[in-house]
Structure formats: structure tokens, C-alpha cells
């Protein structure tokens, strides 16, 4: 990731140590993961110890310390989707991609994540791929939907 971009984000937050989480969130959104050199820059400019940054980056689920695949698959496992069969959707997607939630495949094609409630419970079970919602899924429809991604 471009260090200049990291600097811009830090400047936007006035290089305040209390803005650490907000800074990391923006880097995550920009880059989809938190590369080591970006974290080092944040540590230096916000004057917070690298160990605290690590702690924050592992404590909160929004952050990833490894690169993400080209397509991010978020399967809703909120309660409404759960009672409507989200587990079976997840099982099928695990089989289809060969990875578990939180993982990325070796070709960096898919990252699989679970999320708690996307707020569109009427469409459950639901998954979101790169921001596009796929609703009222059956296991077969979920696996089919992934086939259209390169």
C-alpha cells in the first residue's frame, strides 16, 4: 500500500492517538487488509507502540492482517438467517471454495467471512458478494452464484 495514502489518512485524523481505530478502519477499507509497512507508519506517526496496534488489529473483527481475495463473500449468520438455514449455506460454500470462514484461497480468488445480521432479514438466508446482495438462498443457489465470479 502507498505510504502517502496512509499519511493522508493519518493527517485527516490529526495524527491523534485516540483516532487509532478510525485510522485503521480507513486503511482497511482502502486496501482491504493491513500491511505491515502501513502499521509501522501508523505506529510511528500516532506514537503508539506496535504491540498495541497488533492488539487492536486482532481484537476487532473488521481488520485483516493478511491479504484478501478478489471477491469477498459475506454469509449472514444472524439469528434470522440461522433459523432459515444459514448453516447449510455456509457448509455448501465451504465445500465450493475449499476454505473456512476467515480464510482466503490460495489463488486469492475468494475470501469467506461470516457476518452477524445484515439487516435484510426478509431476504434470509442472505450472502453479500463484493457488496451485491444475494437473498432467499438455497444451498444450490449459493454455490451457483459463486460460479459467475472470475
Amino acid at each position, binding site marked *: 500500500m502507498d505510504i502517502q495514502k496512509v499519511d493522508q489518512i493519518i493527517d485527516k485524523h490529526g495524527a491523534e492517538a485516540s483516532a487509532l481505530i478510525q485510522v485503521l478502519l480507513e486503511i482497511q477499507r482502502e486496501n482491504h487488509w493491513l500491511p505491515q509497512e502501513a502499521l509501522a507508519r501508523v505506529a510511528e506517526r500516532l506514537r503508539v507502540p506496535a504491540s498495541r496496534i497488533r492488539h487492536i488489529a486482532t481484537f476487532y473483527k473488521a481488520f485483516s492482517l493478511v491479504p484478501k481475495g478478489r471477491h469477498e463473500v459475506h454469509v449472514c449468520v444472524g439469528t434470522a438467517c440461522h433459523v432459515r438455514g444459514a448453516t447449510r449455506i455456509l457448509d455448501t460454500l465451504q465445500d465450493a471454495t475449499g476454505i473456512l470462514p476467515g480464510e482466503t484461497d490460495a489463488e486469492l480468488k475468494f475470501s469467506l467471512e461470516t457476518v*452477524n445480521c445484515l439487516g*435484510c432479514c426478509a431476504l434470509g438466508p442472505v450472502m453479500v458478494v463484493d457488496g451485491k446482495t444475494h437473498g432467499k438462498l438455497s444451498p444450490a443457489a449459493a454455490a451457483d452464484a459463486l460460479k459467475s465470479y472470475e
Partner: protein
Amino acid sequence: MARLNSSEDLERLRREILARRDPKKPCVAVCAGTGCLASGAADVVAAFRRELDARGLADKVALRGTGCHGFCEKGPIVVLDPEETCYLQATPADVPEIIEKSLMGKEVVERLLYVDPQTKEKTVREPDIPFYKHQKRMVFGPNRKLDPRNIEDYLAIGGYRALARALFERTPEQVILEVKESRLRGRGGAGFLTGVKWEFARRAAGKPKYVVVNCDEGDPGAYMDRSLMEGNPHAVLEGLLIGAYAIGAHEGFFYVRQEYPLAVENLGIALRQAEEHGLLGKNILGSDFDFTAQVHRGAGAFVCGEETALLASLEGQAGEPKPRPPYPAVKGLWGKPTNINNVETWANVPLILNEGAAAFAAIGTAGSKGTKIFSLVGKIANTGLVEVPMGLPLRDVVFKIGGGIPGGRKFKAMQTGGPSGGCIPEELLDLPVGFDELTRAGSMMGSGGMIVMDEDTCMVDVARYFVDFLTEESCGKCVPCREGLRQMHRILTRITKGEGHEGDLETLQQLAETAQEASLCALGRTAPNPFLSTLRYFRDEYEAHIREKRCPALSCKALIHYWIDPAKCRACMLCLRKCPTQAIDGGKQRIHVIDQAKCTNCGTCFEVCPAKFGAVRKLSGVPVPPPIPEEQRTLVRARKQDE
């Protein structure tokens, strides 16, 4: 925009806005909340814009993308004002017809109306639809009337009048007294009296003081806070301003989950517009009250909804709860007195000042006043957000508003209170909605998730689900929470796999007691509730899993087998083609058989088998009948109508 320097300025602007608006001018309100957007609402709005332009109607018809209307099941929703004609599941293709028939003419597009599933009767007007008719939408109702990105819409319905009243007609103490007299209780979970909490913060020594909006909404089945924040951010801000004035705070924080980008965006716009109008910043409305507010995005940790963890997170730390006391009211953000309320709590405040404490307290039960917004989800016909007066029987929520259970299935239980709550069985459905009522039943109000479960939902699995959720979300600080939950999760998982044994329930109960007693924060203390309440009402299901290795709901994957009833199979080959593991043997005219060794229990065959055949069955606790002999597998087509 000129800033407003007095209460009179505010009223003058309101009159101007209303004068500019012709109440008879047709307005198309399209729900653009997250649920409807996911079902394609943005395309519907775009189609209206395009078609209105093409017909030269852009000036004659107002078009408004609003926040969530609540009837998510039937989205995208289009309401035509002033008639309040309500069209459901509208698509861009429907738009030209809506414009021609209903906007240019006075006709109704019949096929887009609400149809009663039983009587097949159609309903034209939104307020007459049963889903809306039995609600009382005091807090959530305005969502439908306004574009959240246009402060003028909020002003047009009386926005910021309550703030002006507080600033110019009440002392801070009087505001607190009024909120106390309304008996408003916090909508975030614990149900603490809001006015009392404000008083603690006002009286606490130390400066500056802070106010915080809790929009972390971690309950994985609830989205009313998000919908308020997306759909009516000014109402939350107005409540916050009134609270800040009452407490003596000049700085506030909105803590919003980062999973809610639209809420963050709309809130940001609202803050900017409020500032431009002199409703935020220095000398608000020309008074000597100053206030600024910031948005802070949460980074995905359920425990951060807990107030002390939330404050740690606001300070840029890991969100780990701290022991209370000291309460945030005494020692909160940066060690200063801080008042935290939930989004919905704040949104109730302007209402109390506008309508008066007595009017507010007149609604509800002895212990719970006003209304509550619930997200009614799961196995329910009308999924959506519903606002009901406290005291309404749960049965009315499920059947009158929710339309009952889809697919002719039977109601089994309702889960309320999220991961800290519990399950309420059919026999308690006449319970009135209220904080104390739900707690007595072994559940809780929580933030307002209401997940309906039918006979296909396994209650052991539900308990396992919530314990799993909380095991993941425990911050790890206390052993009974961290290790106890992990242990409970292991045992519950075993039970759902048919590997439970005698003594498991007793061990679970012991672990539950320890977590309840020895955890630091309410996450750990309430974590056993889903287990305890399901055990209390559905013990027979636990016992069936443990003793008979049987899942009565036919839901636990490890305890069921799929089997094709040879008497019912019509050899249509649908399941055979769809089976992802090629576990089905059959052919044209050949009765299909599932190879149990290859079957992964994915359930695809069960889903695709045409309802008129219903040949695929789930079995649990009984052996799978052996495949029928080869020579009997040829299908003899007896009658034509079997096809």
C-alpha cells in the same frame, strides 16, 4: 442557508418550508432502507426519476427516497401520497404503469396491492394493511415521511421544536424531571430509567461531561437502531442535544457499527445540515448552549455495545469491559462523567418534550411506558420492523402484525433479547410486551430482536447457536465467561451431534451458574440465558437428543437422514439432477434411491422435490428403511393426473 438564531427563526423557517409545499402535490415515497435497497429499491427510484422526467412531470410530482418503512418482507415499497396508496414488491418495470394509472389518472394498480393471504382481499391504503394497522408508530412512523438527507423534511414535521422548547422554556433540571416523569426506560437492553441516569450525570462532579449514542447494535437479529439512524438521524440528534443540555455536556459521540455504512453516511449529512442551520455548534438557536458531535465507527466486536467497553473503544483502546461502579455517569470517557443511551432511547426524547411526560406515560404497562420497536424476523410471514405499544400481547405481534408462520407450519417459540435473552414458548404468548414481563418469563427485552421459530427449529441448536456466538464474542477477560462458554459450547455441539450423554445437562447447568455469578460484565452474566430458557421450556428436546439420538425438529444435520418414500416418488429426476454429490440413483420411470454413504445431508433433494409429490422425507431416531428391491423400482404410471 442562514443560521437560525432563535426559536422564532426556527418557526419562521418551518412556515416557509410548509408554504413552499403544496400538501396536495403528489409525492412518491420509495423505501430506500437497507432491506429494500437489497431487493432493488435504488433501481425503482431511478426508474421513477427517469420516467417522471420523460413525461415532464418532474415539477409536478415529488420523489422521495426515504428510510425503512418496516414492511421489509414486501420491499421495494412505494407509497403514493397524499392518498397513501401502498404498492409492494415494485420493480422498475412497474413504474410506467404506476405513473400513468395512479399519478396521471386516479386508478389503482391492483396487482401491486397488499393481498390478504387468507381472504384474498386487497388493501389500497398503507394504514389499512394489517401489518401497519395494529402498530403504534410514534418513533418509527416519521421514517416514511422524510428524506433523511434533507433537514427540511424533518423541520416540516415539527423537527427541533422540542429542542427549542428545552432551551428556551425549561431549565436543565426541568427537562430531567420531565424525562423522569415520562418513566422512559433505556431501549438498549437493561431498561434503566433514562431520567434517573441523566440526573446522575448532571449531579456528577467533573468537567467536561460527555453524551454518547450507542448504535453498536450487536444483537444478530435486530436492525431497528440502524433503520432509525438511516431513516431519521435528526430525531436521534435532537434527542441527544436535549440530553446534553439537561446534563450539561458540550460534546457528544455517535458510536456506529462500521457494518452500517448508510447510517454513517446519512448521519454525517444530518450533522452537517444541522450545523449549517445553527442547530449544532456554538450558541445553538441563539442560546448560550454549545454542542459538537462526532461520529465514531465501531470495528466489529459485540462486546463494544457494553457501555464501558464502548467507551474504551472510543478512546482508541481494545473494547474490554471494566468493572462498574464507577458507572460511566461518574467516571466515563477519559475519566469524565458520561451519559450513554441507545439510539431508540434518544429518539424517544423529542417526543416526550413535544407531547408531554403524562401523555407518554399514559401508553404502556405499569413498568414499561411508550412503545418499542422490534425486528420481527425468522419464521414469520411479515418480516419487518414493528413498533407496538408496551403491553400488547406477544400473540398479537406474531399473528395480527406478523401474519403468523409461513408455509402452514406451527409456531414453536419466540426468541427475544438477543444472545442475552431467551425463548418464549407458545403457552406464554399472551404475555404483554414489557421489560419486567419478559424478564419474568426467563427472557428479556434486550434491544428488540424477536426471532420467530416454528416446528422445524431445533431448540437445542438455538441454544448452541447463541452460546457459539458469545464464545466468539467474549473478550476473554474472565475465566467463567471465556472458558465456561467454550465448555458449554462443546457440550451443546456434542448433543446436537447425537453424542450427548447422561449428566450433560447437569454439567451445563453448573457452568451456566458459574458464568452468571462470576463474570464481570453482562455478556458473561447473561450468556447462559438462551440455554436456561430453552431447557426450562423444551427439556424434552434436549432429552430426545441425548437419550434417543433424535432431533424432534428434524433439524440437526448429524441426527437426520434423507429418504425417498418409494410410494411417493414419481421419478421426475429433479433431485437426481440437483444433488451436489451424485448420491441419488434413479432414472426415467425408475424410483429414486438415496445412497446414504454418499449423502452429505445438504437437503437439496428435500427442497427441490415438488410439493405435490413430497417424496423426500427427513428421518431422525429411526433406521433408514432398506432400498426397495431392484425389480420393484420401475414406476408404473397408474393415472395421468399423477404427472
